[in-house]
Structures are given as structure tokens and as C-alpha cells.
């Protein structure tokens, strides 16, 4: 009987537990988290803050999860892992306990970046990632009227959603020339920015916050341009980084995140990693990437769980898959969005708030940006991207028709599936 130790208590960790238990009933599983409570999703904090769900509803599984899967939970600040002894196969907890393992999964996720600027740690200047962060912001928002959100990425956007829903007067400051610089393109960003104007969000692009000062509880943000913004509360949403500062001395290879292979294994025998804290090869670009997204966390976790449970398994997908809804506009992106380097973006829909841009590398589809109705195609386009098809006709066909029809036809033709799909050969020739 093996003893599996899992550090972390969110999507990557719980998915690993669930899939490990599909192949191994008897092994011992210990789950360690520095946060007390049942598993919750950091992706839900802004839904809680907007009033769309209760605090408790962020916890997508309750304590019965541990019992159901026969997991021993070690939860709370005293249980934070402070060191990994890879040679001795044990982890040391903050309270001094040593927990031995046969194999170990590190699924500790991300943590917020706290910028080093003057005033970045003043009371009333908050970050948002954990459930505790969300509760603090909820408290501060009870009295605050004017809220400034620093950062135009996913957390920034979702925080603006929540604050607008609560009737706050919102200012958002982004360093780059558009919102959602990673998961959206410039034209898509304009659609979001137009929606911001409609709702009355004061969006300041290409502005950097130089310092924050406190004047009788009121925050004064001074921008690099010299402009000043006053706020009752500031949310710093400038990004997250892997939460891996306890790895010293373990010999685990890190390149921004913990480097894992397609079996979620690290370079150290018996140690796996999954989710936001891991760096894995993007299946589309071939580049080592840290995906701080749920789809990567669950796939890394699923594969880690199966391998730990004794079933050698490689992951099936690893690409960017994003969805977000800034002020009610359904947006998403799949695959690679960067143009240049021989990649070409083609806008095939751009009217009435609907937007669909496809990114090609030669004849091969590598990415898509979708807003409004075209978002329904996101899943199919992701499949098409993953299939790496290079039909010379594909580009023009995709520009005209839906993704699905091409997907099906190519599926039938290129993979010789005609017989399996019971399609007479003459129909696919």
C-alpha cells in the first residue's frame, strides 16, 4: 500500500484525488493545505463579491469530500509545508510534524503579487486571490463608495464586475494599452472598453501607479503621468505567481513554475506537480508555460492522480482556454493569441458586439478570440486547434463556415474515420 501526499486543496488537488481513487481504492491519501476549510475555487471569489453567490458557495466541495474519498486532511496554518526532503521522502510542516510519502503532488496554486511601490501595503490596499482576501474586500466594500482596481487582467476585470454590481464608483488602471492583454486581442479589448464606457467605469489605460498615500483613510493614487485618483479602497490585481517558496533544497527544477512532463512528473523521482504552480509545455506553441487556468489545473491533476494511482497516463490536452464576462459581455479565447512570428490573425465576425478572430500559422489554426455568440464555438475551435490539421483549404473554409462542419469533415477524412463513423466512402471523397 502506497502513501500519497498531496499539497494543495483546490482544482488540481481535488481532481487528482478523484482520479487517483478511480484506480486505487486502498492506497493512503493525505491532503495538506495551509488554509483551513473544504476545497474552494479562487475563480469564484469575484462571484461571491458581486453577490451572485454566498461565501459558503465558493467552497465547491464540502468536508464529506475527504470522507468519501478516504482522504486524511491536514488543514490550517500549522500544517503549511515548509520543506520537502526529497531524499528522505518526507515533508515538514510548520508545526514541526514530518509527513512521509511514497509519492508527492505539489498543487499549491498561485499567490497574488504585491507590488513594491510606496503604499502598496497600506490598510485598505488589498489583493484578491484567496477566500480570506475576498472576505476582507467584502468588509471594506461595505463602506467604500469609490473603488480603484489596479490591473486589467482577469482578476482585475472580474473585480470590476463585482464592484459595479455592488454599485461602486469604479476606476480601473492598466499599464498596457488594453484590458485583458493576455487573453484578448486589441479589437476584442475595444469591445470590452466600449462596454466599460457604457456602464461608467473610469478606465485609465497606459497608466502606471507610482505611489499610494493615505489621507484620513482615503487613498490617493499618484500615477506616473502625475494624475491623481482618489479612492476609499484599492484592489491590487497585478497578477499572480506560483506559490512555491518552500521548495528550497528539494532539487526540483523550476522555470517560473515547477517544470512537469506530460505525466505531471517533476525531475525528482516520486514528485508530481499540477495546476497554477506548474510549468508545462503548451501543446500548441511547444513552449514551456505557466497556465493559471482551471482547465490546466484539472488536466494536470487528473493525470497526476492516475499516475500516482498506478495507471501510467499522459495528458490529453494542454492549451490556453479562457472565458470571462466583463460587465456581462461573454468573452473567451483558445490556443495562441500572439500574432507575428509568421502568425496571422483574421477577423471573420465583427458586428453588433459579436467578434470572432482566428489566428493561423500557415494553414494551421492555432488560436481564436471570441466575443458574444461566436463564443459557443469555442470548444469546437479548441478541438480543431488540438488536431493540428493543415488542410490548405481549411483557412478559407473556417472563415466562411462554422468550425463544426469542418471539424467533422476533416475528422472523417484525415483520420480515416469514414468506416468508423459508418459514412460511405463516396460521401467523404
Amino acid at each position, binding site marked *: 500500500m502506497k502513501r500519497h501526499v498531496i499539497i494543495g486543496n483546490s482544482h488540481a488537488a481535488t481532481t487528482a484525488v478523484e482520479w487517483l481513487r478511480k484506480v486505487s481504492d486502498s492506497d493512503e491519501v493525505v491532503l495538506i493545505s495551509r488554509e483551513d476549510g473544504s476545497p474552494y475555487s479562487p475563480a469564484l471569489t469575484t462571484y461571491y463579491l458581486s453577490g451572485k453567490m454566498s461565501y459558503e458557495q465558493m467552497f465547491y466541495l464540502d468536508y464529506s469530500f475527504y470522507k468519501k474519498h478516504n482522504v486524511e486532511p491536514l488543514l490550517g496554518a500549522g500544517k503549511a509545508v515548509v520543506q520537502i526532503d526529497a531524499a528522505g521522502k518526507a515533508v515538514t510542516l510548520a508545526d514541526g510534524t514530518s509527513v512521509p510519502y511514497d509519492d508527492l503532488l505539489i498543487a499549491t496554486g498561485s499567490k497574488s503579487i504585491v507590488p513594491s511601490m510606496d503604499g502598496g501595503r497600506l490598510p485598505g490596499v488589498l489583493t484578491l486571490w484567496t477566500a480570506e482576501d475576498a472576505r476582507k474586500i467584502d468588509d471594506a466594500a461595505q463602506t467604500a463608495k469609490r473603488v480603484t482596481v489596479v490591473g486589467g487582467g482577469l482578476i482585475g476585470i472580474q473585480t470590476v464586475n463585482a464592484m459595479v454590481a455592488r454599485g461602486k464608483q469604479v476606476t480601473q488602471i492598466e499599464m498596457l494599452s488594453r484590458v485583458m492583454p493576455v487573453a484578448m486581442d486589441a479589437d476584442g479589448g475595444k469591445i470590452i472598453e466600449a462596454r466599460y464606457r457604457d456602464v461608467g467605469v473610469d478606465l485609465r489605460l497606459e497608466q502606471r501607479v507610482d505611489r499610494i498615500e493615505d489621507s484620513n483613510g482615503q487613498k490617493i493614487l499618484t500615477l506616473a503621468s502625475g494624475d491623481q485618483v482618489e479612492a476609499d479602497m484599492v484592489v491590487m490585481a497585478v497578477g499572480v505567481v506560483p506559490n512555491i517558496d518552500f521548495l528550497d533544497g528539494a532539487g526540483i527544477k523550476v522555470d517560473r513554475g515547477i517544470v512537469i512532463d506530460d505525466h505531471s512528473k517533476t525531475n525528482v523521482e516520486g514528485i508530481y506537480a499540477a495546476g497554477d504552480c506548474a510549468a508545462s509545455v503548451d501543446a500548441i506553441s511547444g513552449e514551456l508555460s505557466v497556465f493559471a487556468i482551471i482547465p490546466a489545473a484539472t488536466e494536470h491533476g487528473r493525470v497526476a492522480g492516475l499516475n500516482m494511482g498506478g495507471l501510467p497516463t499522459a495528458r490529453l490536452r494542454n492549451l490556453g482556454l479562457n472565458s470571462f464576462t466583463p460587465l456581462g459581455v461573454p468573452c473567451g479565447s483558445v490556443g495562441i493569441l500572439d500574432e507575428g512570428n509568421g502568425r496571422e490573425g483574421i477577423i471573420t465576425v465583427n458586428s453588433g458586439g459579436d467578434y470572432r478572430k482566428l489566428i493561423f500559422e500557415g494553414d494551421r489554426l492555432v488560436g481564436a478570440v471570441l466575443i458574444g455568440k461566436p463564443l459557443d464555438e*469555442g470548444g469546437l475551435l479548441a478541438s480543431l486547434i488540438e488536431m493540428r490539421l493543415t488542410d490548405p483549404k481549411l483557412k478559407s473554409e473556417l472563415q466562411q463556415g462554422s468550425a463544426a462542419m469542418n471539424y467533422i469533415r476533416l475528422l472523417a477524412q484525415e483520420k480515416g474515420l469514414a468506416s468508423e463513423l459508418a459514412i460511405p466512402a463516396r460521401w467523404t*471523397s
Partner: protein
Amino acid sequence: MTKGLLINASRCIACRACEVACSLSHEGEIDPSKSLIGMQLFNEAYFYYPMVCAQCEIPYCALNCPTRALEKNPETGQVDFIADKCINCNLCTVTCPFGAVTVRDGLAHKCDLCDGDPWCVKFCEVGAISYGELPEPADHLRALPYLRFTDEVVPLTPVTGDAPTA
């Protein structure tokens, strides 16, 4: 064994009766845009395929649902949708390999098999859709019910029956 919709694409004539039936069953109106089964056409190849939830063995929609509004039912093997839990985050839409989960009016929508009596099956005059036990994948943990870029190919949705004779 999981029961689900079995598609025989060779019988499909793209009449869209399934879409009519689906919207009638779920919305009480005939509006194919609200159908949970979607006809995909490729006229050039005379190829039609009613795309619908495949009750995947690896249900990416459910794996990625942060509120567990989508969940693989351990009893039936089917992927259930619990509307009360849906927060309209669209992750199911971008992660379903078939595009079989769409979001409309702030809620995800997917095939619920009409509680075991699928209307699309009843309305399909040519026998392209049937309701029955999905074939057991060779290795239920490895086999994907959708096409991968490896040679380990498993059909999109299970297919039964013979091709029609011309």
C-alpha cells in the same frame, strides 16, 4: 453501462427534425437556435452530423466547472446539469470538445436526454438517432470519446447500424 444518444451519421438527411423536437421538448417552442442538439452540415461532402453531448468518459465540461453545476453521475454515467449552481462563467463552453454546451440567458444548456425519453429520437424519421447503451470504451480511463491527435481514435459519439444502400 452509460445510456446516451447513438448517432448514425450515414442515415442523417439533415432534416433538422431533432432540433425542432429538442426545442419543443425543452422550451415549448419550435426554435432550432435553442436546440441542444445541433445539426452540422458540410454540403460539399453531403455529410451531416447532429452534434450533441457525448456523455464523455473524461467529461471536460464537468472537470472544469468551478461550481460543479456539471457533474458525471456515478450511477448513470451521464453528465448532469444542476441549473441552480451555474454562474454563467462559460468554462464549459470553451472546454467541451464538441461544442455541445452553450450558454444562453445566463445559464449553460446541454442535452439532458429528456429524462430518459429523448424527443429527438422520436422525431428522427430515418433512424439516425437512437437512445441506448453506449459501447464500453476499451479502456475507460484512457479512451477519449473524441478524436485525438494520436492514432488512438475513438469515434466522436458511438455509431451503430448499417449504412443505407444507395
